[in-house]
């Protein structure tokens, strides 16, 4: 019996070690970036254009570019994603077609990001003749975050109790009225969470924008959606691998800005989800 207990202790200790092996490096990565990046974070760094071949100055155009791209991606993906989620949660019955739709969503989520880049290049840049532009990049990122938005919105819609729908229908409201006035308003926090997670993903991805929009060095702001733009993740890639002798401070500073952007966005999503759970009315 003693033997069995001892075995259990050893096993649990081993499991604990494995867990530490994941969690500790995560903490170290975040701490390292904050510690080394914080000194670089000045007002000038955030608001100035890159200078001296990106070895000095700031990262303002990259921040702006990322904001444009992310906004564009959400504008493209939200209406389609939300409608798709409504279809799956409110209209779809258990048929082969819907099984295929779900499988397609899983696949869309699993396509390697660089393949999205290729696809965006072939369809938007070359075939649609949008060129390397914010438009092409946004559309590519939009399709990439579509599965995230669909999945989160669908969960949110399905969490609205069935009885609300029944009550609304029994009062003579049509199906669409029920969705519009009862289901959607109660699913909004979940939908917002999905959108925010999509934003986080779109802001951090590099491969899909490599050939569709990203400019190596463009020290002015884009004027229209047909312009190229810099973007934070690509900028970090460029200054860490393509440009020699960049001050470590600038690299860490850029990494910190990108990381904080993505983590803040995720944190907001978590807070919304948490608050919504607490004040749920049913």
């Amino acid at each position, binding site marked *: 019996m003693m033997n069995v207990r001892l075995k259990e202790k050893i096993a649990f200790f081993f499991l604990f070690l494995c867990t530490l092996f994941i969690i500790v490096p995560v903490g170290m990565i975040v701490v390292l970036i904050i510690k080394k990046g914080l000194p670089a974070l000045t007002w000038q760094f955030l608001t100035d254009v890159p200078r001296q071949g990106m070895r000095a100055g700031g990262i303002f155009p990259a921040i702006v570019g990322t904001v444009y791209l992310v906004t564009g991606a959400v504008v493209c993906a939200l209406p389609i994603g939300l409608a798709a989620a409504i279809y799956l949660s409110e209209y779809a*019955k*258990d048929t082969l077609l819907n099984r295929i739709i779900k499988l397609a969503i899983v696949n869309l989520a699993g396509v390697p990001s660089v393949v999205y880049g290729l696809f965006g290049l072939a369809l938007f840049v070359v075939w649609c003749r949008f060129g390397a532009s914010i438009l092409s990049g946004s559309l590519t990122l939009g399709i990439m975050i579509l599965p995230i938005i669909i999945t989160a919105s669908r969960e949110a819609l399905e969490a609205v109790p069935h*009885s*609300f729908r*029944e*009550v*609304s*229908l*029994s*009062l*003579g*409201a*049509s199906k669409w*009225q029920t969705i519009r*006035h*009862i289901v959607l308003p*109660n699913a909004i926090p979940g939908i917002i969470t999905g959108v925010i997670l999509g934003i986080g993903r779109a802001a951090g991805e590099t491969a899909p924008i490599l050939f569709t929009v990203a400019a190596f060095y463009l020290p002015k702001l884009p004027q229209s959606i047909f312009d190229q733009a810099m973007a934070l993740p690509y900028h970090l890639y460029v200054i860490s691998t393509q440009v020699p002798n960049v001050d470590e401070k600038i690299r860490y500073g850029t990494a910190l800005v990108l990381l904080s952007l993505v983590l803040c966005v995720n944190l907001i999503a978590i807070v919304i989800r948490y608050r919504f759970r607490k004040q749920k*009315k*049913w």
Partner: protein
Amino acid sequence: MDKFKIEQLNIWFGKIHALRDINLSIYNNEILSIIGPANSGKTTFLRMLNRLNELEPYFRMSGRVLIDGREIQTIDLEVLRRKVGIIFALPLPLPLSIYDNVAYGPRMHGIRQKSRLDEIVERSLKQAYIWEEVKDRLFSSAFKLSGGQQQRLCIARTLATDPEVILFDEPCSGLDPISTAKVEETMLNLKKNYTIVLVTNNVKQAARVGDRTAFFLSGELIELDTTDKIFTAPKDKRTDGYIRGKFG
């Protein structure tokens, strides 16, 4: 004239045969009580009258259900459901304010005018005997009301759509005796203007409010007669057994 006429109605959910060969009429301005043990098909019958059963997957039916001489499948679904309102077993307020709950139906039917909505809300709440209790907090959440108040709010909400028939699906199953008495009193008062079908587990409630009473068992209509006769001289011994509490 009959409000509803049901002919040879059969309902299945997948392989479950929920109702078998039901034939009956529901008169104008009566309260028809339907009693029977669990799974006897009484709620299925009730939900047939405004076609809510069709929301369930694998629903199938045969036979005819007529309202005012017209088959219900030929009537616009939204119009039918407005005509035939339902009160569910549990109070189910929508996650809106008291006012918006009551105004929900009329708004969905296209009434936008503030003064008309105000008028409908006040009238409906008065009819459901809850106006005095909520008139000072019309814009607070309906979830803040007690269970009994919520159920009467639900009645008001149904009345606001201007129905001709009101279906009650065990409306007092979650309520205490005082709230139950209030809901029953409301029903009796509504009888003047509406046809009421009441499904209940509570045999005494059927005896208190029903003009006629129907007894369902295993998806079949066993007996239908005036409430007096059902409770004093039932023809079928299964009815007798049920109302005496021998099974249920």
